[in-house]
């Protein structure tokens, strides 16, 4: 797939998990014990043979820059192709964007100069191990103008209210588009990944900008679905979509089931992330750990159950951690008890503190807080 350019929108859907994106992009939200959300689309692109990827950012992207570094971990530290970070104000024309089309306009120079024939775009809200090759193949074979990756299934009202819903005919052609509708039940939702030819995309951007149209979903998918040949690619593999802090919690917890983890972490299509050179995890005398994901650099002296524990977390003696997500550097001091807690980086839970929430509303504790 040397002829495909990848584009990742790092800031899209920031608002769906507002607590987690206060100081970072959606793409740099921590996930699954050692990843950030951008690791998934970025690894997927690399594993699909795409070797030129642009990451479009808007604000709060310093942590994203730090995470991506020279892109060596994704094998994108290249002379030809490689990773391009596209922050606002990089060019005289690239100001803060409000919609996806404006964002693409800021990336126009990269798109134009790319030697690619096709462009694959993805947001950072879907956690999956997706091979883009069959999607591009279908796009080419079907003669579509735009291919939208979709999944048809049962969705809750909360999920659909954060999604773009497509109605397709038997041939897979999109007939109508509903944006964030107030529905629930079985429907076909966009997974926010799209394929277009480079030439079509350039024309689309130029035309939309000239007409003052900034939203890809409203002004293109919805408004033009009669006029354009927009087709769905139905995706059936394991995925989680983050539409709220609740679904973020669930997406993490889902990986405690080895059956799910084995569909996400494929030996031949690994998910790459930044290396952090932690020592192995250390389990102390009298600790008790069951049904949990534990990252390197942790020192566990107490109990951990049904939890996702990021790198460098300390769980003290007689501390109890149940149904929690503890991000990097969290310290749970001796005797503390936590349940249904999401701690951001470097949170301190004091000795013998008891913090309990409920499955419906896991409690979020902000970066660096001491409780």
């Amino acid at each position, binding site marked *: 797939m040397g002829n495909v350019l990848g584009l990742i929108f790092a800031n899209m859907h920031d608002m769906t998990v507002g607590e987690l994106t206060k100081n970072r992009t959606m793409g740099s939200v921590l996930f*699954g*014990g*050692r990843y950030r959300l951008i690791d998934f689309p970025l690894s997927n692109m690399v594993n699909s043979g795409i070797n030129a990827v642009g990451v479009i950012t808007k604000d709060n992207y310093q942590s994203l820059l730090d995470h991506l570094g020279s892109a*060596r971990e994704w094998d994108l530290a290249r002379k030809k192709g490689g990773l391009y970070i596209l922050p606002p104000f990089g060019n005289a024309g690239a100001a803060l964007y409000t919609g996806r089309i404006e964002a693409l306009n800021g990336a126009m120079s990269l798109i134009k100069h790319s030697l690619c024939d096709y462009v694959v775009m993805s947001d950072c809200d879907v956690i999956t191990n997706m091979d883009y090759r069959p999607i591009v193949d279908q796009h080419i074979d079907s003669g579509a103008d735009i291919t939208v990756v979709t999944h048809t299934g049962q969705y809750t009202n909360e999920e659909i209210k954060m999604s773009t819903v497509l109605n397709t005919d038997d041939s897979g052609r999109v007939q109508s588009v509903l944006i964030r509708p107030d529905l629930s039940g079985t429907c076909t939702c966009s997974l926010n990944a799209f394929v277009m030819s480079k030439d079509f995309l350039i024309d689309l951007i130029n035309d939309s900008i000239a007409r003052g149209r900034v939203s890809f979903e409203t002004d293109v998918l919805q408004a033009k679905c009669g006029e354009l040949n927009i087709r769905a690619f139905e995706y059936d593999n394991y995925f989680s979509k983050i539409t709220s802090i609740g679904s973020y919690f669930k997406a993490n917890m889902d*990986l*405690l089931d*080895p059956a799910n*983890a084995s569909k*996400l*972490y494929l030996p031949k299509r*690994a*998910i*790459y992330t930044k*290396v*952090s*050179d932690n*020592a*192995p*995890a*250390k*389990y*102390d*005398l*009298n*600790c*008790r*750990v*069951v*049904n*949990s*994901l*534990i*990252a*390197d*650099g942790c*020192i566990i002296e107490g109990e*951990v159950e049904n939890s*996702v*524990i990021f790198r460098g977390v300390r769980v003290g003696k007689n501390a109890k951690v149940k149904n929690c997500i503890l991000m990097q550097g969290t310290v749970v001091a001796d005797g503390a008890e936590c349940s249904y807690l999401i701690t951001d980086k470097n949170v301190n839970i004091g000795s013998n503190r008891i913090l309990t929430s409920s499955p419906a509303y896991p409690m979020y504790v902000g970066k660096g807080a001491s409780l």
Partner: protein
Amino acid sequence: MFNKKECVAMLLAGGQGSRLYALTQTVAKPAVPFGAKYRIIDFPLSNCINSGIDTVGVLTQYQPLVLNEYIGNGQPWDLDRLHGGVHVLSPYEKASGKDWYSGTANAIYQNIPFIERYDPEYVVVLSGDHIYKMDYNKMLDFHKAKNAAATIAVLDVPKEEASRFGIMITDAEDNIIDFEEKPKNPRSTLASMGIYIFDWKKLKKYLIANEEDANASKDFGKNIIPDMREAGEKLVAYRFDGYWKDVGTIESLWEANMDLINPNIPIDLYDPAWKIYSRNPILPPQAIGHNAEIQNSMVTEGCFIDGSVEFSIISEGVTIEEGAVIYDSILMPGAHIKKGAKVEYAIVGEDSVIGENAQIGARPETIVDKDTWGVAVVGNKLNISDGANVPPKAIIYEDM
């Protein structure tokens, strides 16, 4: 970025490590896995970069493929530099002929052109099979302050162990006045750690002279150091008081691994100021199952553990099924322990599979004749069938 380096490190990665044979059939000893996510060579390489030494030659001629791939461009140790960095140096053919390395001194002699590229004042000579954390820069400061020709790092060992080491006899100023190799009645308890700093100009002179002596064995300990002493060069001992262990045998390799989980042994891998770097595997976090019991162990990424693990070191990508029991053992990367298998006081090599209900090794307290007890070793990429029994002290090279 300067063409000149004050100090260059030469790491003697050594040969086959015949006493570790089951683990080194296709890899050089420094590439043997250690401490769940490391390989032995991570320790001297990390010490180098943490000491500010950014130019390292790794001398090896035995099975360098794995070591070469592992070291790569040195990036995991921050040793990928435009000038300097880490280089694996194998023997090569010169216009004058071709020779394998015939000894530690000869290996460095053959790589004089490599060292001279950096025009160093000092050369640190290190060994590839020691586990320790040491600031070579402090030793270099000591070397400079003493204005020595050579400085040898020494460890004060218990008197009863001294006869296992090369022993340095020093005067009150730490000058080395004599030395003895594994003496029966040691005159001192200062054991050489196999870590040397030399004034490069002087070392070069002695290397060349030693090379011209057809009878010399081309070895640092046997030739270069004695030659320097005889010539009246100033040799000093630098006392090191941290943790240090030679891992050249199965027993010492097992012990050094166990030391990592012994709270009374002072080697801390969690100190952010002196990280031990390694080439990290690309694997998800370790998954601990519903039936797992883990205590007093170190585990790293990509493992799935649903059995019992105590006092053990579990490397990347290991699977321990429900009901399997691992006590006082080392599981190397990719090992797979099936249901009900019991691994006690054992080392299981890379990618080996231990069948259901198999028994590997045994606890010493269960053995009457203590001489028949020892760590059991299953080599790399082997299949041990269901219900098989590998007795203690056994070393397995083939499927069984």
